[in-house]
């Protein structure tokens, strides 16, 4: 468990790698690869998260990784998994394909809200941590679950800050503050953009992020430039 950092200019270390930027952003829902690349550049993020999927067999598959700036670190995720078993399998495949131990663990519990299944997440985290993965688990902001995930060997936890796609900004500052005060290393899991596309939603997310301070990291990409 790390102690809370006090400045935003310090290095951010995860999985044995140091980063200058504290933003880790997504790669989904962009209209074009060009737009994605422009957003990645503008964000200054040094790590992006990508999903694992079956390849299509009709030769229609574009090589997605080729559209990412090669300097970006890649954080594979288990998006779309609904059980610990699926997530574990996906993590192992990601490690085999990319040669990275990093995994953003997502086990979804509800199809409508995409809220995580904390119980399945913990189960998967325990298995993967034992296998040497650097597990970054997405979970709802329960303090005891955070403790258990850290005890399982996760170097940091990723509490949900707002319902996915809601663009509501940080909804649970009290819980996040407690985690921070207890020295838990948390990476804020938050959609910065609103589906409405309104600038207000986007900027509110960024302000929330700034007020959360240097412990805050963000996982949701900006669909347009800041």
């Amino acid at each position, binding site marked *: 468990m790390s102690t809370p950092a006090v400045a935003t200019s310090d290095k951010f270390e995860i999985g044995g790698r140091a980063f200058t930027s504290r933003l880790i952003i*997504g*790669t*989904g*829902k*962009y209209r074009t690869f060009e737009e*994605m690349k422009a957003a990645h550049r503008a964000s200054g993020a040094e790590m992006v*998260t*990508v*999903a*694992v*999927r*079956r*390849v*299509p*067999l009709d*030769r229609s*598959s574009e*090589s*997605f*990784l080729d559209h990412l700036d090669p300097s970006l670190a*890649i954080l*594979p*995720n288990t*998006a*779309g998994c609904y059980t610990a078993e699926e997530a574990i399998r*996906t993590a*192992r*495949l*990601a490690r*085999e*394909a*990319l040669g990275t131990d990093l995994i*953003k663990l*997502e086990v*979804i519990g509800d*199809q409508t809200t*995409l809220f*995580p299944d904390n119980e399945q997440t913990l189960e998967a985290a325990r298995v993967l941590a034992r296998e040497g993965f650097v597990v970054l688990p*997405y979970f709802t902001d329960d303090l005891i679950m955070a403790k258990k995930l850290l005890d399982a060997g996760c170097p940091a936890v990723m509490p949900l800050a707002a319902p*996915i796609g809601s663009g509501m900004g940080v909804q649970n500052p009290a819980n996040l503050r407690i985690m921070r005060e207890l020295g838990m290393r948390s990476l804020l*899991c938050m*959609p910065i953009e609103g589906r409405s596309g309104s600038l207000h939603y986007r900027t509110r997310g960024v302000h929330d992020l700034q007020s959360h301070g240097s412990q805050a990291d963000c*996982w*949701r*990409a900006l669909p347009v430039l800041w």
Partner: protein
Amino acid sequence: MRIQVNGEPREVEENLPLPKLVAELELKPEQIAIELNHNIVRRAQWDNTLLQPDDKVEIVHFVGGGCNRRQEQ
């Protein structure tokens, strides 16, 4: 002989080495991972892996997405 690739039946030659299947599918070997009958085949073992009738092959790659989104192919 018939095998299954990502859930779809496929006719391939007997004892087809795994890298040849990857080439047939025009996939970039360095960006994929392969399961054979539910077990990951390490990259170092691809050359020694000869496909047998009714083998079930799963091949995955990376796509944009995550952040808790559902499939975004």
